[in-house]
């Protein structure tokens, strides 16, 4: 056998990283190897993940709100943050979701739109993984079209009374606080809502066949009394939650590649050792064509993610560019996962191997943070100047 390289090594992709960026990725890879990989198959099988313990481990490394500055956050570059998402999702999309929601949705919303008191109160504890946050935008009747939300907050003296239901909320069953988006007279705004307040009900969503190593829930608010200080003072209009989504989507552009890489590595490992018809499966041309084509898509996706990361680090990244990345990389990652699954035959459907878990997880990743169709519409509108949303 001649010298072999991994899909990552084939194009020397790591040569585009600084030593420091590689060091960040290395630390996350080691952490995932120690605290995620040995347990994740069981978390997935049982649908029970020790999110709080996990969050503290992730916090110790600096992964929660890693790209934010101050308030106990590390302040790493966009590329370094992206690489962390990739390494986390090579473990499991659910673990990456925990980090995305905590850092890019809940913490980012407070960091960007919150008052100084809100930042002081929540961000250091959230960065350490001692307080878990969630982000309530989607409602049972309003997913792709959040502008139609019916959750409302009305004034009662200086206080607010919050009423409504948020659905499909990652981390909700384990969270101390939710950033909740609601309509007020002036339009959409955000509130920081501790989930132990009277009138708040959290229901866990069971029977998920995807993202099972992540806690998902429903938040019901029944005239929840909030002080004026609970409102995010700088959040005005729907563009506030949408800007948070752009942050988190950027992480997904990288993250999905992690799941893809793990599938590819598993398939290469498997097909080079499994023998049929007297030779390793990887020795057949049809297998090699699959591996070559999938590796091309992985590499193209990585280069795209890296390009977006450098744009972000120079302050030039635009939301529609993130849509390009999310549309392409999640779509290709799911295709990679499915094709890798075929190469493992029956073992491909077994929880002993990570591929089916990744493939199932990526179905959620395809849907949340803007479905593929929504991103096609974003890109289409940018190309044609015509909105086809409604």
């Amino acid at each position: 056998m001649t010298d072999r390289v991994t899909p990552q090594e084939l194009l020397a992709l790591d040569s585009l990283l600084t030593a420091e960026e590689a060091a960040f990725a290395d630390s996350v890879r080691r952490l995932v190897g120690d605290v995620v990989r040995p347990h994740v198959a069981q978390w997935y099988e049982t649908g029970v993940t020790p999110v709080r313990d996990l969050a503290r481990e992730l916090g110790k490394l600096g992964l929660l709100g890693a790209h934010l500055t101050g308030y106990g956050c590390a302040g790493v570059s966009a590329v370094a943050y992206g690489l962390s998402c990739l390494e986390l999702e090579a473990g499991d999309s659910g673990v990456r979701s925990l980090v995305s929601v905590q850092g890019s949705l809940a913490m980012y919303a407070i960091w960007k739109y919150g008052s100084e008191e809100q930042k002081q109160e929540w961000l250091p504890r959230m960065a350490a993984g001692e307080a878990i946050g969630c982000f309530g935008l989607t409602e049972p009747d309003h997913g792709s079209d959040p502008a139609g939300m019916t959750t409302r907050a009305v004034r009662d003296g200086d206080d607010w009374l919050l009423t409504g239901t948020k659905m499909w909320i990652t981390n909700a069953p384990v969270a101390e606080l939710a950033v909740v988006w609601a309509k007020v007279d002036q339009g959409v705004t955000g509130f920081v809502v501790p989930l132990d307040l009277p009138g708040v009900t959290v229901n866990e969503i069971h029977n998920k066949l995807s993202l099972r190593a992540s806690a998902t829930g429903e938040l019901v608010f029944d005239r929840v009394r909030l002080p004026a200080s609970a409102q995010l003072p700088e959040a005005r209009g729907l563009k506030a939650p949408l800007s948070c989504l752009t942050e988190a989507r950027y992480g997904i552009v990288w993250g999905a590649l992690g799941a893809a890489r793990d599938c590819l590595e598993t398939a290469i490992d498997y097909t080079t050792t499994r023998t049929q018809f007297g030779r390793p499966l990887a020795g057949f041309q049809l297998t090699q064509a699959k591996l070559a084509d999938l590796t091309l898509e992985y590499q193209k996706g990585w280069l795209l993610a890296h390009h977006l990361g450098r744009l972000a680090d120079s302050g030039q990244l635009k939301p529609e560019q993130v849509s390009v990345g999310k549309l392409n990389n999640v779509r290709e990652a799911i295709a990679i996962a499915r094709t890798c699954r075929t190469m493992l035959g029956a073992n491909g459907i077994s929880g002993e191997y990570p591929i089916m878990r990744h493939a199932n997880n990526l179905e959620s990743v395809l849907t949340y943070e803007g479905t593929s169709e929504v991103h096609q519409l974003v890109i289409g509108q940018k190309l044609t100047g015509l909105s086809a949303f409604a």
Partner: protein
Amino acid sequence: MKIVVLVKQVPDSGSERSLRADDGTVDRASASNVINEMDEYAIEEALKIAEAQGGEVTLLTMGPDAATESIRKALSMGPDGAVHVTDDALHGSCALGTSKVLAAALRTLEFDLVLCGAESTDGRTQTMPHMLAERLGVPALTGARKLTVEGSTLTVERQTDEGYEVVQATGPAIVSVWDTINEPRYPSFKGIMAAKKKPIATKSLADLGVEAGEVGLAGATSKVLSSAKRPARSGGQKVEDSGNGGADLVAYLSAEKFV
């Protein structure tokens, strides 16, 4: 408490390593170089002591300029600073020569404790702590699987093939550690970023007052005369089970002294 940790950059033991054809020294140029695995345990132990009792942790490395990369990595675990001894004349130094240089560097530093890995994965001599102790006139507690520091009293569980010995010394002293002593931390994001700004003092042989002729290939007391690649793994021996497979297996294992 002032702690100095000896850190060596070595070729990654997980990948292909070779000796140079011209002078028989380790080929560092074509290898992927990493911190000697055992040294990470020494760093962790130093950090734990400094965190519990207060103190300062300084790394000491002798190696080519490129070793800076490994020093930064080691600093990202948490030490306060590093001293890097680098000089063209050091290439090819034997263990004795290296100990001369490290001892000279240690004399310029204040320390209550010197920690190092029990061995390096390239040289594997396990002699450095003894040589340094001799040169500096301090005790050496080697091969530790546990270290307790109470005031200036150092107590070590010294790992042996049969079990362990409890040995004690009064600092300053040198302690070498095995990978059973702790679980090294991963560099945190903040640690990685802080490492960029930590001081690395560079010293030449002249700075340390060591003559170039006493070290390096020229001054080496041992020399590689010839070397050969490890033979490729052979196919191993297959025990066919035609009724007495169990007995055959046991016969093989006891012949090879595995049981």
